């Protein structure tokens, strides 16, 4: 397994999601947490670029942060939801972690 990237900022507010998409290798995984989970939402101005990335990368989002922000019903197909236990599992299943703080 390769690298796990985490993104914790809103794709509408900061450049970190964009930079993560640009600088993550094919086959790597991206986990959206905190305000980063807005990138998991269907029908936004960034949805297309996330879908494009999902062709070569696996995208996860933290269920707890999705729920907190009231976007439970809006997650796009193909994004896998994980809880904190799943977050830990992703960290151990990948060789290393890069946080796009």
């Amino acid at each position, binding site marked *: 397994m390769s690298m796990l990237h985490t993104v914790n900022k809103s794709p509408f507010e900061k450049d970190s999601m964009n930079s993560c998409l640009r600088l993550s290798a094919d086959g790597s995984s991206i986990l959206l947490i905190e305000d980063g989970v807005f990138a998991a939402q269907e029908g936004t101005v960034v949805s297309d670029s996330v879908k494009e990335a999902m062709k070569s990368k696996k995208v996860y989002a933290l269920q707890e942060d999705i729920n907190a922000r009231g976007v439970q019903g809006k997650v796009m197909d193909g994004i896998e939801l994980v809880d904190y236990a799943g977050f830990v599992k992703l960290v151990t299943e990948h060789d*290393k972690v890069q*946080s796009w703080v």
Partner: protein
Amino acid sequence: MKLSIQVNEGPYQHQATDSAYNFTKAAIEAGHEIFRVFFYHDGVNNGTRYTTPPQDDRNIVDRWSELSAEHDLDLVLCVAAAQRRGLVDEGEQERNKKDGNNIAPGFRISGLGQLIEAGIQSDRLVVFGD
């Protein structure tokens, strides 16, 4: 597996320390060893015992202290970051001639080498920040 955690933001202003806490707890529950939690930048502000959050809110500092007591967690505040931001233990109090200290139980102040060591000794280092 052996994990280390880095926390870059203080309590309440950013979710970083909440996420780090929830992650650390889940990692312990999954049977992993936490080698160290290193608090850098404004993260050092998590180590003050002077906080008094509203009664209906979580106490972020106490939560870390309690987790440390239960699981013998090594909670390290970076000394350079702590000096800039006013986090003081007994040693720092004496060294910098302060009239008191404000560090919470379970935390200790040490150098940046502790972060590098965590990177070397741990199987994974996970960073939580702004």
